[in-house]
């Protein structure tokens, strides 16, 4: 196999908060292929966001290393774009202005910025919404703008932290299809975090299941359904049910463990 796009090597992360140390991640080993759509699922608090922050260069791991294109991650970079659950749009900028924000960071000339922003608004299905401010957009539209912003400066890797978790079911289904379409069209490498099993199976070529804290990779499930967008009603496909059940079983014990630890924590 060729070299992975992203490689996590024995990555660990501990936090020191109010005297106590919390081990959020331990011994994460994971390879992500170029152009792959990898989904990470895990119980809440298992360190998914922490892992993504490390890959994004927003925090530093305590041990191990992360390689992107064989080069260690030392900080944020425009080769990786992050999409957050809460959109993180600048409220004083229009949809277009928000998309241009990433291009300004990349020092793209002004005229080119405007054209690029329009292009990516079109890509995420928001043609004509360029002058809307975030408070004039629905949650789904805001997330489309955020996705457009992350795509516009053309990173190889898209890191998405539960991007659809705050949206209603219908909007979420629509955006999942849209994301798959964009992924197929652009060939980005995507790491997508979710706590939804259906979402994981629907989107991921592979689904990495994490253990409860300290987070480790428990198992990686190869979702053997190809050409998703061609499959008419993927969710009622028997293979879909099979993978959903497999991941559900893997997660069940971890969620239980996380719950009981949480309860113990509150009793102390």
């Amino acid at each position, binding site marked *: 196999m060729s070299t992975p796009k992203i490689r996590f090597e024995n990555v660990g992360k501990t936090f020191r908060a109010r005297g106590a140390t919390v081990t959020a991640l331990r011994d994460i080993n994971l390879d992500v292929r170029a152009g792959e759509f990898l989904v990470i699922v895990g119980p809440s608090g298992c360190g998914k966001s922490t892992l993504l922050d490390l890959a994004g260069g927003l925090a530093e791991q305590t041990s191990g290393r992360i390689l992107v294109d064989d080069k260690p991650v030392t900080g944020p970079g425009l080769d990786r774009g992050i999409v957050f659950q809460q959109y993180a749009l600048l409220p*004083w900028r229009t949809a277009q202005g928000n998309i241009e*924000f990433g291009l300004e960071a990349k020092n793209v000339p002004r005229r080119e910025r405007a054209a690029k922003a329009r292009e990516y608004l079109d890509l995420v299905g928001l043609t004509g919404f360029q002058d809307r401010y975030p408070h004039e957009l629905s949650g789904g539209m805001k997330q489309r703008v955020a996705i457009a912003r992350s795509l516009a400066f053309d990173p190889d890797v898209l890191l998405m932290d539960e991007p659809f978790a705050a949206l209603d079911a219908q909007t979420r289904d629509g955006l999942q299809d849209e994301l798959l379409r964009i992924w197929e069209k652009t060939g980005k490498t995507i790491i997508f975090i979710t706590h939804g099993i259906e979402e994981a199976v629907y989107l991921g070529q592979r689904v990495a299941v994490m253990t409860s804290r300290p987070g480790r990779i428990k198992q990686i499930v190869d979702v053997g359904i190809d050409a998703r967008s061609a499959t008419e009603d993927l969710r009622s496909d028997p293979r879909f049910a099979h993978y959903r059940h497999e991941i559900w079983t893997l997660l069940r014990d971890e969620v239980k463990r996380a719950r009981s630890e949480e309860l113990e924590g509150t009793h102390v």
Partner: protein
Amino acid sequence: MSSLTETPPAVRTAPARRIAVPAVPASPPRGLGRRIGRITGAVLTRIVAIAALAVIWEVFPRLELVNPVFLPPLTEVLAAWKDLLVSGELGNHTSASLARSAAGFGLAIAAAVPLGLLIGWYTPVANLLNPLLEVFRNTAALAILPVFVLILGLGETSKVAIIFYGCTWPILLNTVSGVRTVDPLLIKSARSLGLGPVRLFQKVVLPAAVPTIFTGIRLAGSASILILIAAEMVGAKAGLGYLINYAQYNFAVPDMYAGIITISAIGLLVNQLLVVTERRFSTWRTAN
């Protein structure tokens, strides 16, 4: 600090828009008629109370329900006001006052905004200085006025200085809080784009803080007028505060009221101007 960082007025306009929505099914002419009716109604409610005050001011002294020597009827006050205006006296006092206010207010903006940005940006500095800022803010400017007079004398310097002092705290505290309350996610997201500290500050922190800074500037603007008058009552040779005080001393009661009316009109105007400016800079903060 919370008392200073009040909700921007823009937020308060939101319910009005929500009310407008159910009116859509109604036929346009009726909807329009109702809207005009509502606007006239709103204007009327605003005028009614002031008109009532004017009527009472006119009638009560004339019926000798209050002593007309201490409270002359409004028409007499307005006549005195006109005389002062025609003689140019009112203009002189007003410009003297406004010059002082503007100087103190302007200096406060020029000093407090950059200082506040600096303090807010460096967390340890903010934590260190905040208690001190609170102490100064809660020390009424007028309580310190004698100190200013003592040190700087009775001239212009002490007057501008006291206005500067009074205007500084609301601006400074709001600026600090504006910088410190920037949504951490916006900062995180900007950092993920590789923005360095300078551009992060310029493109994220500063624009995010602007509405809060303007709230501080509006509060300072009101304060500048209030403090001005008191400052001018102590050893000034011109200004509206001086006019009011001097008129009272010489028992020119209508002139005194003319001065008071002028000052309250200026206060209203300045405040209105600042509210409009503030709203312009914080439209994006509506309903987040």
